[in-house]
């Protein structure tokens, strides 16, 4: 067990996979110098420029090259510097790589990992702060993980590289600097598709992923009149229905905390599944706590307000438990 920052867990996972499989290589913009978030620091020295490849600023070309190289048996790890940059390259993943297994009846597979920095909170403005998981949901053939800690970053990234299908790893940029203990090696690997129950309680199940795991935890810890099962989903596609439903069956209440905007959020999927599966067993309606339907503002106070805070999550849950009804989001009272 070693204490490391999340960004170091990225580099460690990459290094361990580069070491264990000669077909693994990295490709992306400026990765040889460590990348803008220093997540690939030290790898060029260790593995050289044939396995840590700097590319032109051409996401479509190098994401597609990742798809093609993967189809030929390599295990590329492509870095998209900010998740928004997928916008100029998405075809290569969602329409090409995701479907080769299907179209070729298994003759071609695409063991491709794509890492991208995502998430708000650091003042990067609306074009460098989104999560954008919705760009990948509903697209067959892709997995998507969002690590919340150095350990889950290490474990999920290694699983992603070992997966025989394309996996998108959204790395929350506000978490890169967070420290935590990490079990490395085989024992530290976390399977794709498995959620983690990070704390046990009795009144409510809180489902979170990435940054909102920390928000949910802080919210629950600030309250003494209710306790929660907190589930870190870890993988969004495919999400772990079994673990979530088991917990909801116990608590009878489901709250979902999402960083993204309300409309089209992943929580709708979880909520819908719970209603369908647990109809009649729910003590309150499922409740989603999200950001408003607006681009992410730059000004610090507004960006902090935009994101669900621990205080806001705690008050929303307390009200849900008190009234048995979903409280209105803050912005409904804030419109002028």
């Amino acid at each position, binding site marked *: 067990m070693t204490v490391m920052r999340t960004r170091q867990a990225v580099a460690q996972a990459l290094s361990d996979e580069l070491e264990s499989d000669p077909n693994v290589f990295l490709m992306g913009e400026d990765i040889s110098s460590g990348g803008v978030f220093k997540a690939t620091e030290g790898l060029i020295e260790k593995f050289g420029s044939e396995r840590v490849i700097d590319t032109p600023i051409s996401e479509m070309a190098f994401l*597609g090259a*990742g798809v093609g*190289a993967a189809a030929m048996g*390599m295990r590329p790890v492509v870095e998209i510097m900010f998740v928004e940059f997928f916008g100029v390259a998405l075809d290569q993943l969602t329409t*090409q790589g995701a479907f080769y297994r*299907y*179209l*070729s009846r*298994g003759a071609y597979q695409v063991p491709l990992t794509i890492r991208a920095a995502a998430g708000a909170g650091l003042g990067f403005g609306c074009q460098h702060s989104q999560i954008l998981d919705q760009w990948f949901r509903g697209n067959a*053939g892709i997995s998507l993980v969002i690590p919340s800690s150095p350990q889950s970053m290490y474990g999920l990234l290694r699983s992603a590289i070992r997966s025989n299908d394309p996996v998108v790893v959204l790395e929350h940029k506000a978490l890169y600097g967070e420290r935590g203990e990490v079990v490395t090696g085989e024992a530290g690997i976390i399977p794709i598709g498995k959620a983690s129950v990070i704390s046990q309680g009795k009144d409510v199940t809180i489902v979170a992923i990435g940054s909102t795991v920390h928000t949910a935890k802080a919210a629950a810890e600030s309250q003494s009149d209710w306790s929660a099962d907190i589930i870190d989903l870890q993988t969004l596609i495919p999400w772990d229905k079994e673990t979530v439903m088991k917990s909801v069956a116990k608590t009878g209440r489901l709250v979902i905390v999402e960083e993204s905007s309300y409309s089209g959020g992943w929580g709708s999927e979880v909520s819908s599944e719970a209603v369908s599966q647990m109809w009649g067993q729910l003590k309150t309606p499922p409740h989603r706590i999200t950001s408003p339907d607006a681009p992410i503002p730059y000004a610090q106070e507004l960006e902090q307000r935009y994101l669900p805070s621990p205080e806001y999550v705690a008050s929303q849950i307390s009200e849900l438990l008190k009234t048995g009804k979903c409280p209105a989001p803050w912005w409904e009272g804030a419109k002028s």
Partner: protein
Amino acid sequence: MTTSLARREKLKTGLGRLERMLEIRAVEESIQTIYNDGHVRGTTHLANGQEAVSVGIASVLRPTDVVTCTYRGHAAALALGVSPEGVLGEICGRVIGCSGGMGGSMHLMDASVGLMPTFAIIGAGLPVAAGAALAAKLKKSDSVALAIFGDGTTNIGAFHETLNMASIFKLPIIFVIENNLYGEYTRINLSTPISDLADRADSYAMRKEIVDGQDVDAVRKSISSAVDFARAGNGPSLIEAKTYRFSGHSRADPATYRTPGELDEWKKRDPLDVAAAKLLESGDLTESTLQELKATVNSQVEKAIETVLSSESPSLDALLQHVSASPR
């Protein structure tokens, strides 16, 4: 049935190449009939008139090389070795099709001869081909990748990004433009400010060549030198094959936008006639053996259609198979 690999071997001789071009023409011309009979869904994009480009390419490549091609891919698939049953079966959505009936006309594939599922998105095959070339380079193999696409593709971002990257990385790849003068329904001069598309290579400091796409021997020669160049580790080439499609863009297109007489002019240089004339002149072919060859090919394609139409549709199981490595 003859394997795709064995069919590929036949392209070693001039006669074999003519035979394959005749086969491609017969397959493309049969599609209207099977469409009218209700066996074809969606759309098709024919490549009759462009046979020499596909056959010229396939006659040079090794089966371990990788080919990406657009949705105008029947000719490339047949040339590379996919059987008429495989191509027509796919077009008819039957289990005998080269993608098991799951892809359709725009998604033909055969891993045994290096054909990745053909691409229904303009430009999409270029980055993927570059990735295959990168894999060959990293594995230190001497395989190459070859991307086939149309003139319209030279105006999409993927083309420019990929040419630039391929040049910087010195990838073993050959980019082949089938310039048939029309991007869908629009004549090239209305969409593109230059007439020799190979010139786009200059921006990327890339080797370039313009070749007569109606002459299979010329295509062979041009591809061959580009492939040798790539295998030797010298990097990519951009080749522009000047050609013409005898049909419209897709099934829906009667091609009324052509200049009067243009089609007839190009038909005077029908790639099948160009190849046959050379073989007749060299004495490798006589007029009567040519007629026999045509008759044989036509009857083989007719038989292939019978086989296809007696083949099953894919089972319901197929719908949920191969979505991901492990079922969800």
